[in-house]
């Protein structure tokens, strides 16, 4: 950068260094391109394979570009009566939306309460939430399953979402945001006669737009891609969410590689478009929260 502003004579005397710089520049872009290809090529393979015929994907050596470009796989997936894709999108969407709405509501309400109200036992309760944050899901997985079995909620989408309505992490994060809200603002509303619930709904919630958006998108992504817990709870095919459907589809269509790749495209692409759309908040959210 600085070299541009140097006088011509100085640039000439620096010529040997210049070559070294050029070389390191080349190395830089070479390494970055290598990283980029490592990231993108598997996606490219998937998309290209999905347009091949099921015979062509078995060829040795593999073809890069589809020799006979066909939409047959996609047509098959859409018309398969055993694969009502819309239903599975619906299941996944229900679970994700319910999860996001419920955790955003509880996190903001409880976080607000921890930030702005004093009550006996507050410290103990907050400490409990911090502890819950540390306990991984595999510990609670088995008894949670037994409870659902007792309640006859296996194979129910409600059973899937019941244990995730309160998110300790969201509470923790929104408490920190609520602490920055000025008390004068809340007191002014109280003097004007607003009820506590009105203050929460009309004054606190609108201030939390950015953290709620971040938390909501991350929660959506996480629920949409969840695999282990839905696989345990949803055993009947028609109630399953997309990732479990994808494994089931793969195991029932062995030897039809192109078809499976087309199904994979159908299932992972929507979320990637969501990402490109909401990119800023997502990347910000991941780095801000360390949420995974």
């Amino acid at each position, binding site marked *: 950068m600085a070299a541009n502003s140097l006088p011509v004579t100085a640039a000439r005397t620096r010529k040997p260094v210049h070559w070294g710089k050029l070389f390191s520049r080349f190395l830089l872009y070479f390494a970055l391109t290598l990283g980029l290809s490592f990231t993108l090529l598997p996606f490219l393979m998937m998309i290209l394979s999905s347009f091949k015929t099921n015979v062509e994907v078995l060829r040795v*050596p593999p073809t890069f570009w589809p020799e006979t470009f066909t939409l047959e796989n996609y047509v098959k997936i859409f018309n398969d009566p055993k694969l009502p894709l819309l239903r599975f999108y619906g299941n996944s969407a229900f679970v994700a939306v319910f999860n996001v709405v419920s955790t955003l509501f509880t996190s903001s309400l409880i976080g607000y309460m921890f930030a702005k109200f004093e009550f006996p036992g507050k410290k103990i309760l907050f400490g409990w939430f911090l502890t819950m944050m540390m306990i991984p899901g595999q510990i609670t997985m088995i008894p949670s399953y037994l409870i659902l079995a007792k309640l006859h909620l296996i194979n129910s989408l409600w059973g899937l979402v019941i244990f995730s309505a309160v998110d300790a992490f969201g509470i923790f994060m929104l408490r920190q945001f609520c602490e920055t809200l000025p008390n004068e603002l809340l007191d002014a509303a109280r003097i004007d006669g607003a009820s506590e619930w009105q203050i929460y709904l009309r004054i606190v919630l609108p201030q939390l737009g950015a953290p709620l958006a971040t938390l909501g998108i991350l929660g959506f992504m996480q629920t949409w891609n969840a695999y282990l817990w839905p696989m345990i709870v949803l055993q009947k095919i028609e109630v399953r969410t997309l990732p479990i459907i994808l494994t089931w589809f793969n195991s029932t269509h062995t030897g039809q590689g192109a078809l499976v790749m087309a199904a994979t495209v159908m299932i992972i692409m929507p979320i990637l478009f969501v990402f490109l759309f909401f990119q800023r908040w997502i*990347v910000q959210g991941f780095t801000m929260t360390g949420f995974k």
Partner: protein
Amino acid sequence: MDPAGKAQRKSKGGLAIVKRRFVAGVTVPLLLYESLGIFVLGWAFVLIFFDYSSGRLGGPILGLGGSNPFIGLGNFVEMITGTSVEANLFRVSLRNTLIFAVAILPLNLAITLPLAWLLESIGIRFKSLYRTIYFLPVLTSSVGVALIWMSMYDPQAGWINAIIRFFGGTPVSWLSDPRAGFAGVSVAMWAVILAYLWQDYGYNMVIFIAAFQGIPQELKDAALIDGASPWHVFLKITIPLIRPTMLFVCVMTMLSSFQVFDIIQVMTNGDPGNQTQVLMLDIYKNAFRYQNLGWAAAESFVLFLIVMGVTIFQMRVLRTDWEY
């Protein structure tokens, strides 16, 4: 004047009541919900002391006792000294999980740290484009990732063997050859490690990029003016200053790799010959395929202890107290 003052006093007392009512309105349902959580945790803890199977009727309270007998620390004794199939499989799974986690962390750092550092020296527009692309696999469903890599690992038509053949090598059955190995670890394990790395490394990239951006430029400029090489700046200024980030990244990467499940379950389901059987997979199979829930609960308790131990250890080693 007087009535107004009275009204004010009244509303002040009323305000406290209103506030208390609001707090009660939130905490009471919350406590009810959380008592469910405590119950679940308590149950998880009790289960580890029982030989419990959901297939047997058992005693009156939660099916414990009777045909699901209390065995004290029996599950743990069996894990350490037992010769049963489950005990052996547990030890194999534990070993595989350790191999997996210990391989993932340095490989991940070896990719993400230099790449994120290289991204420092290119323009902002390119940087955000690169960042976007590196992040795509993180958001891809792990089932999708597993299927994509399975097609690339295919012994006949897969791309990886095609490249090996092109250079004159012998193709490998990546996910099913029990005898092939590299550096004492089976190729199937390396194959799932690579797929997992591919999905996971964009996450650490984004975090490192943010951390590098947070380092004041003046510090680096000052060192460069004093004659330090860019490499020295990286080693002596950048790396020490991102220590808190390093701690966070190491803990998170370790935690999630100890709990790996999705990719391995889809790609190999523990095969060939249990060479990729990891703890979560063993827990899942014991609990939901063999109905051996007491044993599975004890296994998850062990996994939990390991995860806690690793976290505390890393916090001790990498902790820093100063800021810049």
